């Protein structure tokens, strides 16, 4: 069923009734929070909008907010697609999200502490031991280590979706090195430049306070005995796809951006090599994976790590943010136990919904999954970035059979969930020069420190740019939108 509005920029907007549209309600009327914006954008023709879109793209390109694509002949720089039509979240709705993501981050932190100490949650039979012991992200070397301030997941990125029932569901928790926060700031900047007028009509939360809060969080977990700590961001280097974000964070926080080769360890203290000799480093915000951190402790062939870093960490002479070994808790298998984990540690009911999950490791669930593959999304438990996901109703018969065989071989490796219908948002599509419905999700950013926490009032709304596609990750052709949180 479709309905065309009279608005020129929305003149060819096809609204599919079964999907939850963020802008239009079931009667195809504009939702309250979007009314003013809709009115303002109505003054533009689709060509005006196309021009603004080109300007915004040029601005991203000139600022070097890009990633590299390698073809046969040479490396090409591309920008992440950005849509100038923002997503708006009302304050009441946001309140729930904010409380919910903070609750999850705190519960995950307590879970991590438990998993690397007494393992009470396992002894009490809440989470099966296999979930931990078979996880490739569980780091035995983290056992009995007390990270400064008692914090493991200082930075969490929680991915949420709105289902066709209009409720938010958490899709996954990212507590290794969640990325994307720089785009929150850049998207806001780009939108301000292109459509500055619209900001006068909405009272929205600023996103620029992220960096200063992150610095406070980092300094709140300084090693014992350090007065004024030196913090650094460590990056794999300029060829990493997230290098822009690493340099952006270092610049806005005002700390050094280092590579592994800039650091060395002596007598279990970490130093960086400066033009005036060596300088002690106390806090490392790492943007490299656990196993690359220290070739003496983990992957021996890691050229981007710092030999001896883990020994210094064990001695409590340096803080690593996020702590090594957090991956065990953002595993998709652990995700399914989140409601129980929250109840167990916090004695509270979960504020945000979890998507019901079938564990292929459980016999009954495996049976159900194999019988109903066509109605489920099957995901490997330990992959990030949208890789390896199979959506049942998009597969051919042969593909379903192959998938079943794959699951049977390693049931522990897979979980399945009902196909969630991500909400859709009007998005400008260059190819057709018109607005179309596209599926979106929302990544929020939560910071946990010693006696301090912070949730960024904003987020990264990721858009699946291919028609009908549900996978929003940038590595799979996703774009993004500025996200406005309205003030009370």
């Amino acid at each position: 069923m479709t309905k065309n509005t009279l608005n020129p920029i929305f003149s060819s907007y096809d609204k599919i009734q079964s999907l939850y549209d963020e802008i239009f309600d079931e009667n195809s009327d504009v939702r309250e929070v979007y009314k003013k914006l809709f009115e303002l954008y109505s003054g533009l023709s689709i060509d005006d909008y196309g021009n603004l879109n080109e300007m915004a793209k040029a601005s991203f390109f000139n600022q070097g907010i890009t990633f590299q694509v390698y073809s046969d002949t040479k490396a090409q720089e591309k920008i992440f697609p950005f849509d100038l039509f923002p997503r708006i979240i009302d304050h009441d709705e946001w309140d729930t999200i904010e409380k919910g993501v903070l609750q999850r981050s705190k519960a995950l932190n307590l879970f991590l502490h438990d998993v690397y100490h007494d393992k009470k949650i396992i002894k009490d039979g809440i989470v099966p031991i296999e979930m931990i012991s078979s996880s490739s992200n569980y780091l035995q070397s983290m056992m009995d280590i007390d990270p400064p301030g008692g914090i493991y997941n200082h930075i969490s990125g929680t991915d949420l979706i709105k289902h066709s029932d209009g409720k938010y569901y958490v899709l996954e928790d990212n507590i290794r090195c969640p990325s994307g926060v720089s785009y929150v700031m850049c998207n806001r900047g780009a939108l301000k430049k292109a459509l500055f007028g619209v900001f006068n009509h909405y009272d929205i939360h600023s996103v620029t306070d992220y960096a200063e809060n992150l610095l406070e969080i980092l300094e709140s977990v300084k090693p014992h005995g350090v007065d004024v700590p030196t913090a650094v961001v460590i990056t794999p280097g300029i060829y990493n796809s997230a290098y822009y974000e690493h340099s952006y964070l270092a610049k806005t926080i005002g700390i050094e951006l280092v590579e592994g080769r800039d650091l060395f360890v002596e007598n279990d203290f970490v130093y960086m090599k400066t033009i005036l000799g060596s300088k002690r480093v106390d806090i490392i915000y790492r943007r490299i994976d656990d196993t690359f951190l220290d070739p003496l402790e983990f992957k021996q062939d890691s050229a981007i790590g710092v030999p001896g870093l883990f020994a210094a960490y064990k001695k409590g002479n340096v803080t690593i943010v996020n702590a090594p070994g957090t991956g065990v808790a953002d595993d998709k298998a652990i995700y399914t136990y989140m409601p129980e984990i929250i109840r167990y540690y916090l004695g509270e009911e979960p504020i945000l919904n979890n998507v019901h999950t079938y564990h292929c490791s459980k016999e009954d669930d495996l049976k159900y999954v194999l019988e109903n593959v066509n109605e489920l999304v099957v995901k490997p438990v330990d992959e990030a970035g949208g890789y390896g996901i199979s959506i049942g109703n998009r597969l051919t018969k042969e593909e379903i059979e192959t998938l079943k065989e794959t699951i049977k071989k390693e049931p522990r490796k897979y979980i399945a969930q009902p196909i969630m219908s991500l909400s859709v948002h009007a998005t400008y599509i260059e190819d057709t020069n018109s607005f179309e419905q596209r599926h979106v999700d929302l990544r929020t950013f939560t910071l946990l420190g010693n006696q301090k926490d912070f949730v960024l009032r904003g987020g990264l709304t990721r858009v699946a740019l291919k028609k009908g596609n549900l996978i929003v990750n940038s590595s799979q052709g996703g774009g993004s939108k500025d996200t406005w949180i309205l003030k009370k």
Partner: protein
Amino acid sequence: MLARVANNLFWMGRYIERAEHTARYLKVNYFSSLDAPNKLSQSRQFVLQSVYQMVGETSFTSLTLKEEEVLYNVGLNLNKTYSVLNSIKLARENANSSRDLVSTEFYESINKFYHFAMNYSNDKFVKNGLYDFTTSVTEHTSILRGKIRGTLLHDEIYALIMLGINIERATQITRIIKTKFDDANKAIGGYANPIKNSYEWTTLLKCTESYDMMRRYYKKSPTQLTTLEFLILNAKCPRSVMNSLNQIYNNICTIDNTKVFKKDTSAFLIGKMRAEYEFKTIEEIQLNVHDFIEKTSQLLFSIGFKLENEYFYV
């Protein structure tokens, strides 16, 4: 500041400056030859060889150079280390590694510059874009220096970039003087003293964007003596070796703030060279211009070498 990043900043400064000098030399030589007063300096081969000599291309054997090939190599050929495009590429690569330390405004300018140059059509460049491209390069580099001065903290980061810029400037000016000195010896001028009053001195001043100011200062047509005095010893001329040395000295003082420099440091070496040049006269230089220029190049090289060892490879 990290030693690795210091190295990046220093070289970023050098490559920005190198791109500009190479582009300007190419432009001025090419266009001034079109109405030069004698046959040899009008000859296209003479100009192309001069350009190759300036950038240090020695591998050509053919006596007749192909114009389009030389222009492409010096302008846009990324496989030639001396090309303008390669300098721009390396400047931006070094900026990438120190992106967190420089301002967004500066980075945006260098990034735009890079994309402008990378997307410049080879065909257009060698056929009719030489003037357009090289002029744009000099304008972009001016913008970059403006952003460096106007948007960065004037601390050791600034000092390192400026150190790179000024060492490169002194080096390039010396190279240009050397090349034009050789040219002047080859192209006999049409006036009384063929070398001392050669047309090449005018070209030399234009290659360094110093012609107008030189005329204002001496109020006479350039001669070998006045040109060299102006470009080597005049501390007020922003393109002179002396001016660069003064700036290099100020820059190193920001980085090495010990009161008395130890004798094996870069600061000591720089101070020594600066003092020596401050009290040099053009008459002394005249005795053996060729040797003097060679010695200047070597001293600048050894300063660069010392800086790298002292600050960048710890």
